[in-house]
């Protein structure tokens, strides 16, 4: 990738990467900013070695994911990213820092009841803002299949959250 493409690359991925980090560090803004900055510095330092066969989204996502894992390894030894991802709904940190209202807390708890693949997809699509085409590259599935999966996951959330008829 040429250097003049950096600006576009940054513009496309900045917000998603920030949100990706943000939701994985318990909504702590300063930490999310520091880690996002590190991710882009790392990405740009490695730009010369970028393999165009891999999508830009997958590439930056991998860098961000590894960086967050390293951060957690340093700050909370023994905790891996899967645990961190899975604990979004139950994260006391997140609830406090994000000042969730009742509905949002319910929703996060419901997300915790979804199969992990569905919860990850909902989080990445609706909270972090990845496009289905990008998710297809990152997750390694067809974008149409992901669209259907996301729709079904939302329906599952609805089934979990809908008021029970008495």
């Amino acid at each position: 990738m040429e250097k003049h493409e950096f600006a576009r690359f940054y513009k496309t991925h900045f917000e998603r990467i920030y949100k990706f980090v943000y939701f994985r560090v318990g909504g702590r803004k300063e930490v999310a900013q520091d880690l996002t900055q590190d991710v882009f510095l790392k990405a740009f330092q490695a730009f010369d070695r970028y393999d165009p066969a891999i999508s830009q989204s997958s590439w930056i996502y991998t860098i961000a994911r590894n960086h967050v894992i390293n951060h957690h390894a340093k700050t909370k030894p023994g905790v891996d990213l899967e645990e961190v991802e899975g604990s979004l709904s139950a994260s006391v940190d997140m609830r406090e820092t994000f000042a969730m209202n009742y509905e949002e807390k319910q929703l996060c708890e419901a997300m915790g009841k979804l199969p992990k693949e569905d919860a990850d997809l909902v989080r990445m699509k609706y909270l972090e803002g990845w496009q289905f085409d990008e998710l297809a590259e990152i997750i390694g599935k067809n974008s149409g299949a992901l669209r259907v999966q996301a729709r079904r996951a939302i329906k599952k959330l609805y089934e979990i959250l809908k008021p029970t008829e008495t």
Partner: protein
Amino acid sequence: MITSWNITRLLSRMSRRAAPDRAFDLALRHKLADAGYLPMRRFGSFAFPSWKTAGVSFSLALSLAGGTGVYAYTSNEVLPSHPLYGVRVALERAELDLPQSEQQRGNIRLKHLQRRVSEAGKLNARHLPVPKSHREELLANLAAVSAASQEESDVSDSASEQANESRELVNMDHQELSDLIDERQAADSDEDVRVIDDELSHQMERVNEDLKRMENDREAGER
């Protein structure tokens, strides 16, 4: 009452609240530029366009179109199913083709987009179907406004927080509307279509609110 639309809306709201600060974005851009990773670029001052020049020229074109044209262009009753709707669309295209700056064109696109949303809202209120062509045009207009607002945002580091936020909302509206329309096309049951149509209807209301907010922010910027 929780609906699947509430769920996507809640998620969108959480996503918006999690968005990075504009100040952080700018600070990081400058840091990357200083490190030589991004081209050094002086972002220009944010300039809000004026409606006046384009308005005068278009008034002239409208007067040439005659009374029918004026009615087609201005009446609230000319909806997609109306015989004069085609005249309205043609006049709007002519309005966009007039010589004018990109900023003026952007404002006109915004005005047209508000009309499409308002028309779709009126059809919904009358329990009439919103034609597919209308949805597509609405989406195309929203994409154009979203792209233009992004370009403005790219060359500006002095836009107000509100202006940036309203742009972001419109960008997000475009994405959400686009997803909903794709989902509607892919829906495989009447129940899915009904749920998605409900979501589309709510989304139209939200687009309308966000566009009004964007317009207000732009007007505030002009002052």
